[in-house]
């Protein structure tokens, strides 16, 4: 037999080498299929990197943003992903502070998602604010009376916390853990992760709140302005509560999506039910408080600022429907769906409920950023319209592509779902099979 014919094909050889990096017991697609999956995301990432270069090289003039509409698609993206990424801190809170052991099944995935959401948001902020080489200035000369300063500090520190939390997951890779020092470091760091989770909760509480607070304190924007307690407007508390409510829902959605794409079961149904119930309870509380807050604003705050509230909804396309959608369609409906065990346990109800809940909070962040800035506040002001251009969409796409790429790599090479191995054993929950 010829020597060349004796050699295994190159693809098989690559698969064999790559197999050494994938945790034992986990089935993954071939390297070729994986490369095919990654290709479009890499192209999207490349386009975004080019658009980012244009922004940093030539300034925001290359975007559709201007002096009147300084915050646009990107700030909406920031607020949305930070709210959705709250699953990381909230699942850490449930697992390490409240000791809900079942959350272990999704905690690694939640940490990776949180890391991606926050690092993506930071990247976009760096492009939006511009002059990233001067970013140290914010930290060295902070304006301690600004909520945005507090947000900057909290998000930066929380990203450090998430990086520390990501490390043990990374070091548990099959090949990396063969290095004894890495393995021991992973173990020792893992033992101290509850401390990080506690710090993460503190930082998240304040930056999620301050992100809402910085809109609520704007007297010059009566559409967003709210009264509150001490220095905190009600939007501070509503942002914290809404982020905590949708964090578990975002974990449900991403896990279900990965399950669909990979045709595998990753977590037990009971976990989905727990996460869904948690969203249901918190979303109910959020919607109740938001309804009260909206009623107070409609009947008092807005009039005190010299505006009849219905005037805001005369500017199309931002009609009254947006308020109805936010509170009823994407608030009360998913809250009821996820709260009721009878509805929640129906096929597809968890996914639909989680999707509506996440959409509701994303819509809320859109209202607080885009709608707030579009509405006129002075008699000579005009209603502003804003349509992002390709550069903004490309940078937006870059963050999505970055998240998909890193999450795909993490899923492939790290054991993000500890129950996957068990559930893939003949698709039987062997843990529950009676042995006698």
């Amino acid at each position, binding site marked *: 037999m010829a020597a060349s014919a004796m050699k295994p094909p190159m693809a098989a050889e690559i698969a064999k080498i790559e197999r050494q990096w994938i945790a*034992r017991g986990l*089935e993954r697609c071939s390297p070729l299929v994986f490369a095919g999956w990654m290709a479009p995301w890499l192209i999207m990432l490349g386009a975004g990197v080019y658009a980012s270069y244009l922004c940093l090289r030539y300034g925001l003039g290359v975007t559709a943003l201007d002096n009147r509409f300084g915050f646009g698609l990107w700030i909406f993206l920031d607020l949305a992903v930070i709210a959705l990424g709250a699953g990381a801190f909230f699942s850490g809170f449930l697992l390490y502070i409240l000791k809900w052991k079942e959350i272990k099944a999704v905690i690694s995935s939640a940490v990776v998602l949180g890391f991606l959401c926050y690092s993506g948001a930071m990247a976009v902020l760096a492009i939006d604010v511009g002059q990233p080489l001067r970013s140290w200035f914010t930290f060295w000369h902070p304006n301690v009376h600004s909520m945005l300063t507090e947000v900057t500090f909290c998000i930066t520190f929380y990203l450090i916390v998430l990086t520390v939390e990501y490390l043990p997951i990374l070091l548990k890779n099959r090949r990396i853990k063969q290095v004894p020092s890495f*393995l*021991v470091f992973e173990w*020792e760091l893992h033992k101290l992760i509850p401390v990080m989770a506690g*710090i993460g909760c503190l930082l998240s509480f304040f930056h999620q709140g301050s992100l809402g607070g910085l809109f609520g304190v704007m007297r010059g924007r009566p559409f967003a302005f709210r009264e509150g307690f001490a220095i905190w407007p009600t939007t501070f508390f509503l942002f914290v509560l809404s982020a905590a409510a949708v964090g578990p829902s975002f974990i449900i959605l991403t896990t279900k999506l990965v399950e669909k794409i990979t045709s595998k079961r990753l977590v037990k149904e009971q976990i989905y039910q727990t996460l869904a119930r948690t969203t249901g309870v918190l979303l109910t509380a959020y919607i109740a408080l938001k309804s009260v807050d909206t009623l107070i604003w409609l009947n008092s705050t807005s009039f005190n600022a010299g505006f009849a509230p219905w005037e805001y909804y005369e500017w199309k396309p931002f009609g009254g429907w947006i308020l109805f959608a936010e509170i009823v369609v994407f608030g009360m409906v998913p809250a009821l769906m996820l709260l009721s065990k009878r509805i929640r346990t129906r096929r597809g109800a968890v996914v639909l409920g989680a999707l509506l809940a996440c959409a509701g909070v994303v819509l809320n962040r859109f209202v607080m950023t885009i709608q707030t800035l579009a509405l006129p506040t002075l008699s000579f002001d005009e209603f502003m319209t804003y349509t992002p251009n390709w550069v903004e969409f490309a940078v937006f796409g870059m963050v999505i592509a970055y998240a998909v790429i890193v999450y795909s790599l993490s899923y492939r090479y790290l054991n993000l779902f500890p129950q996957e191995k068990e559930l893939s054993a003949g698709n039987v929950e062997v843990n529950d099979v009676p*042995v006698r």
Partner: protein
Amino acid sequence: MFPFVDGFHWTFGHVLFLTVFGIVLAVIAATLMVSLRRTARESKPGRAEAVRWKSEFHDLTGYERRCRHDLAGRVGHRHCHNEFDCRECETHPKLASVTAAEFDFSTYGLDYPVDRFYHRGQTWVKCESDGTLTVGLTDLGKRLLGRPDRVNLPNAGEKVFANGRGWTAARGGVEVRILAPVDGEVIATGGPESEFYLRVKPLEANPNLAHLLRGQEVSGWVRAQLEQLQILVTPAGSTASLADGGVLMEDLPKAQPEANWDKVYGEMFMAP
């Protein structure tokens, strides 16, 4: 930010800001420092192996972590949370005295001599009259590996630690670590062609082998292992069939080359 930086004022806001974020940064730094310090302390060969076992034990599924008393029929579903170290387990002596329900002792056609102690990583230990311990691969372990392509045994004089690396074997390009069942110093080595793999001198004069399986537990364990093996080698898309009768083949990788042996070895030899 700091008192020496232009713009800082000794006001409540500045001091509170500096204090809160200073504490947060200090806690993050302290966490990393403590982890690194402990890593430096625990990275010695024996300790690192112990840490590896602790870490990997937590990756085992509930089915793999079944308590020995569950396997022996002394108690209902019970998982071990003690890294299979019954020497440190407070519940073990109580459960060991429980008489099990009626239980047929069988090793399903496999050879598991009753004069040996068994480790769940497919090894056995036999106490010799001169105080040394002989370590070998169980019958199921031998059938799983068949004729290994390569075996790396420790040299005489090296120390092995219970649940740490005993030796490694490779078959069909898949390498697997075989866990040592006891602490000891290697005084002789055998191999696949020999009756045993290691002969060790225990590190303690009277070694405590309470963490190893014996008697009824072995029967329950072998049955559980065979069930698990059947699920593992069942082709994707089909259901594991519960065959009755017959004995497992001598060289399983040769008999069923299409199975995912990387996964099978990982689970059967407890090397996740």
